[in-house]
């Protein structure tokens, strides 16, 4: 199978093109000799299936950020049959560099001039044929967003692939050394552009500028940002809660109408395992899936609109005082979806110190799995009017713990960096529904795949622990779970966390998605019945203390694995596990004991 590598600078619409080519069939691929995962997809190009690999967006092949190293290493080790280089039509003067570098290295290059719809609107006329002729390579103009030129692109890719040799090409060794001086390339870019691009003398003021005057306002910018995030979350709940209620009812009637009668003659042990264990656990967790799905769609919308770069601008002054920068803040926001991609996103940072400090704070981001736990407990123990405020307070504490951690560590010699902060600010773009759908869907699928396996395994394990040794009262102190819970009581009792909740916390260490599932199994109830029961056995300070602990302590095994892989340091990974655990205990202890003290 022939292999096509997709390359380009950041903000050229590379993911959009990749999603359009792959139609959301992309898989995270593993590569021999390369420790990081890259997206790849099998795409029908002409008459044959080709493999398309989405490489990280980079500015040039010289760089020393991890992303740039990854691309270089890929090109040096994995033979490719075609390099598809994506450039932003509005910024050809600086984007052609990467194309020329790749051409110079001897790769068969197909230049894809993207966003021709935008450049047309700006009055920039690009003669793609002349551009191709001047550069001595093949070029097509497309709009990856709207699909313009897509068929021509596929046709051209097929032609170039079939024109190439059948065997694997050689890979170039030592990419950096083989690149010639930038000045020569620069001269060439200027010559080429003179003959192929006509720019209007004056670019009219864009909608982006007008929006920025308000959204990036020195005083209103930050308040507006928080209002916008609040609107996103409200939107998720407004749309998601009715669906969730429907699903709860559906699961309850499925159990009473079909499953319970069907299992009426089964042995009690098996019936208990299937209904109060597996079904209760999985059904309870599943009702949160619509909320999570909506959450990812909204995040995709915010991310693709270009607003996150504005957030980086607005928050950089504060982040600089914490030893971080605007990009770290964006990663914290990404972490609201899932901590794992946020940890991997720190690859754009060149300085190891800054990366490590960012990785230290990202796990405090209140991810969607933790959100599930909070939504459940808040709905069970607080009134509808208190609920949004309680949730908001948890988001506040999520930021606060991240900031305090950075503040405490910023002077440590491992975390002091002199990293520059120079990033591009793309114009606002309204993503198409298709774009949001594809992006969101990829995230959702990843989440569901990960979650289902862990949840089913977790729920089964909790059931076994709460029902054995045989003959004990389920979830009582005599079961294995009870013993573990009791052993932890000296540590957890001052936080208001009883033996049963302690078991849920232990499983939350594996993945936060399991916490609610294990509560369902521990109490042998699901849905509304579980909420009602939890409201009876827990006081609100206990619930809040439990939520604080869940928020702050170790995120999940996947996050730990990512931190280990990205930091390549066991010591750092241990620190990133232990510190949140200690902090979680301190915060929950301070909260619970103060409430007890004040409340008498």
């Amino acid at each position, binding site marked *: 199978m022939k292999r096509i590598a997709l390359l380009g*600078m950041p903000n050229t619409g590379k993911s959009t093109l990749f999603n359009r080519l792959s139609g959301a069939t992309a898989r995270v691929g593993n590569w021999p000799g390369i420790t990081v995962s890259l997206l790849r997809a099998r795409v029908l190009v002409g008459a044959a299936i080709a493999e398309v690999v989405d490489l990280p967006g980079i*500015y*040039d092949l*010289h*760089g*020393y950020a991890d992303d740039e190293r990854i691309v270089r290493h890929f090109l040096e080790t994995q033979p490719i049959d075609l390099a598809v280089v994506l450039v932003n039509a*509005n*910024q050809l*003067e*600086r984007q052609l*560099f990467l194309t020329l570098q790749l051409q110079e290295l001897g790769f068969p290059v197909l230049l894809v001039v993207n966003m021709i719809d935008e450049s047309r609107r*700006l009055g920039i006329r690009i003669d793609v044929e002349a551009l191709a002729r001047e550069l001595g390579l093949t070029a097509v103009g497309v709009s990856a967003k709207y699909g313009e030129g897509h068929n021509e692109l596929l046709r051209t890719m097929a032609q170039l692939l079939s024109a190439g040799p059948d065997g694997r090409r050689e890979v170039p060794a030592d990419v950096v050394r083989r690149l010639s001086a*930038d000045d020569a390339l*620069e001269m060439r870019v200027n010559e080429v552009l003179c003959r192929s691009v006509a720019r209007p003398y004056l*670019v009219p003021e864009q909608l982006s500028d007008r929006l*920025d005057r308000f959204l*990036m306002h*020195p*005083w209103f*910018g*930050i308040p507006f940002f928080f209002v916008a995030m609040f609107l996103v979350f409200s939107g998720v709940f407004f749309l998601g809660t009715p669906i969730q209620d429907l699903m709860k009812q559906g699961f309850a009637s499925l159990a009473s109408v079909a499953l319970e009668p069907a299992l009426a003659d089964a042995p009690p042990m098996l019936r208990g395992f299937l209904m109060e264990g597996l079904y209760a656990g999985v059904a309870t967790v599943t009702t949160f899936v619509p909320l999570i799905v909506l959450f990812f769609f909204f995040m995709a919308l915010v991310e693709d609109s270009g607003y996150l*770069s504005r957030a*980086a*601008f*607005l928050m*950089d*002054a*504060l982040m*600089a005082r914490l030893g971080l*920068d*605007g990009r770290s803040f964006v990663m914290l926001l990404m972490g609201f979806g899932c901590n794992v991609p946020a940890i991997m996103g720190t690859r754009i940072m*060149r300085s190891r110190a800054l990366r490590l400090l960012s990785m230290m704070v990202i796990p405090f981001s209140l991810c969607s799995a933790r959100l599930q736990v909070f939504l459940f407990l808040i709905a069970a123990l607080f009134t509808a009017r208190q609920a949004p405020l309680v949730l908001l307070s948890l988001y506040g504490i999520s930021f606060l713990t991240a900031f305090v951690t950075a503040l405490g560590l910023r002077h440590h010699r491992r975390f002091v960096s002199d990293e*520059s*902060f*120079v*990033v*591009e*600010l*793309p*114009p606002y773009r309204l993503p198409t529904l298709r774009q949001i759908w594809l992006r969101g869907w990829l995230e959702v699928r990843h989440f569901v795949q990960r979650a289902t396996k862990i949840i089913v395994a977790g729920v089964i394990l909790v059931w076994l622990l709460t029902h054995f040794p045989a003959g004990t009262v389920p979830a009582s102190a005599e079961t294995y779970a009870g013993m573990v819970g009791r052993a932890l009581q000296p540590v957890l009792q001052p936080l208001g966390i009883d033996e049963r909740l302690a078991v849920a916390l232990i499983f939350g260490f594996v993945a936060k998605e399991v916490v609610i599932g294990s509560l369902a199994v521990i109490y042998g109830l699901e849905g509304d019945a579980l909420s009602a029961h939890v409201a009876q056995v827990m006081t609100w300070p206990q619930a809040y203390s439990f939520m604080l602990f869940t928020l702050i302590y170790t995120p999940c095994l996947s996050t730990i694995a990512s931190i280990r892989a990205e930091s390549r340091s066991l010591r750092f990974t241990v620190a990133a596990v232990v510190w949140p655990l200690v902090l979680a205990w301190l915060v929950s202890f301070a909260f619970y004991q103060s409430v007890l003290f004040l409340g008498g």
Partner: protein
Amino acid sequence: MSSSLTSLVTGEEASIVAIQADEVLRNRLMALGFRIGQRVRLVRRGAFSGPLQVRIGGTDIIIRGRDAARIEISRS
């Protein structure tokens, strides 16, 4: 007379005359369009001595004051 990029007032435009940065930052700046002779305009400054937003050609860039200080400009 040359001075640094940070001395621009909002809305003002100037030409880049020199970039006094180490190789890594220099490459980064070049890739983003900072080149000798290019016109650069200060679009806005972030509050609380936050980063600058500058425009070069068709690209907007956010850059911290500390890094912007390495770019020399000429107003003529």
